[in-house]
């Protein structure tokens, strides 16, 4: 199948971009990664994502698709060869979408808050909320996986991509704060899942090693504007 004309605007350090890369790998789609730092406001980004000016953007032929989870669903709909990303049953699809939105609306902002928290007390408060979020995700894993290896069952699926793309960053946050979030004692299923994800043949090549990610992220974050003007 002709897969030329697929470009991904983004940067490997971004978990949102990683989601798209995981989906493209799952479907064996050839693509070109056009490295882009949104904080430097490149023109191509403003043209393809005029509303939000953010990465990732998938360019498929003449079309530009934005927002990582929307792009993943697009990839699933547009390329029907290869494994399905979303589960077949409507209820399971709604459940996967719900928890993916939970990652974006609850977990991700907390990771940002932890980076910005000043002082031990403030950090502890955010870490407590993060732990609670991970406990919820642990329950979600038990319900969705139904005893199998991944949220998607025997193989990686939508929710594995939505959360799995953040495992590298979560490990980085653990290192920087000397804490454990994906913890073998409190969230043992999730901890096991994270290990399996990094070995899974479909997606392991795009998941960055946390040590390497730490270095790359520090460089990337240095380009961010100091004032919260975004």
């Amino acid at each position, binding site marked *: 199948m002709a897969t030329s004309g697929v470009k991904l605007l983004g940067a490997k350090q971004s978990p949102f971009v990683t989601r798209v890369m995981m989906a493209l790998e799952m479907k064996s789609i050839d693509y070109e990664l056009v490295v882009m730092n949104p904080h430097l406001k490149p023109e191509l980004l403003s043209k393809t994502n005029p*509303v939000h000016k953010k990465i990732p953007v998938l360019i*498929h032929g003449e*079309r530009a*698709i*934005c*927002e990582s989870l*929307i*792009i993943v*669903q*697009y990839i699933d*709909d*547009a390329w029907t060869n290869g494994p399905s990303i979303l589960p077949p049953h*409507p*209820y399971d*699809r*709604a459940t996967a*979408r*719900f928890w993916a*939105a*939970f990652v974006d609306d609850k977990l991700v902002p907390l990771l940002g808050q932890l980076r910005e928290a000043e002082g031990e007390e403030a950090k502890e408060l955010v870490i407590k909320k993060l732990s609670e979020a991970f406990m*919820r995700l642990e329950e979600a894993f038990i319900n969705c996986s139904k005893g199998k290896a991944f949220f998607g069952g025997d193989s990686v699926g939508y929710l594995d991509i939505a959360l799995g793309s953040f495992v590298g960053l979560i490990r980085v946050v653990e290192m920087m704060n000397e804490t454990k979030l994906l913890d073998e004692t409190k969230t043992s299923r999730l901890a096991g899942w994270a290990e399996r994800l990094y070995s899974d043949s479909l997606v392991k090549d795009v998941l960055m090693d946390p040590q390497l990610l730490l270095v790359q992220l520090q460089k990337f974050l240095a380009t961010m504007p100091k004032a919260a003007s975004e």
Partner: protein
Amino acid sequence: MGGVKVLGLNSSFPCVRVLWALKLKGVNYEIVEENLLNKSPLLLQMNPIHKKVPVLIHKDKPIVESLLILEYIDEVWKTTYPLMPEDPYDCSMARFWAKFVDEKVVVTAFEAMKSEGEGKEVAIVAAKETLELLEKQIEGKKFFGGDEIGYLDLVVGWICLWLPAIEQVGGMKLLDSSTFPLLYQWTQCFVHIPAIHECLPPREKAVDYFQTGLNYLRSLDASKK
């Protein structure tokens, strides 16, 4: 194992989105009215994470979040009245703009409603900027879904009754017909569709809903000072 139930209230537009979808699909449902100031054990059991309405209960299983419920309804009752576009790209655009409506249009409208003094003017400008982007999306089309209403029309539908209610409570005008003629025209077509019209609450109910909410927020702010 019962039929289809919707936990919610018809003064809440996310709930009405769900009712519209069910009506268009010809699905019979029962509304279980919720009191948001005194949430029922059923709601807390069915939506323990967010504790919000609407909740769709189908075959005893809960589905939450109005946008997700719309897609669920479309996937389960797929032979009648398709809501999502067929083409994957059009689908992704519908999802993109639906997200934009809930994260930007609704939020900025509420901000403008709540704001006072100088901040209010700034908030009104921000809200109008989001409406401008929506205005561009309806250009050249009768409905967001094309010739017939679809998913995105149901998502934007709150502007036909709830936005005027927000404007009234906030003492401001956001969607005026001269600045946004296409959106205004769209509201007039949308609201006359029978399935849409049948689910609309009286305007006073929507006004009351937002006024109660605003009073509650202001009392919270006052108690913090």
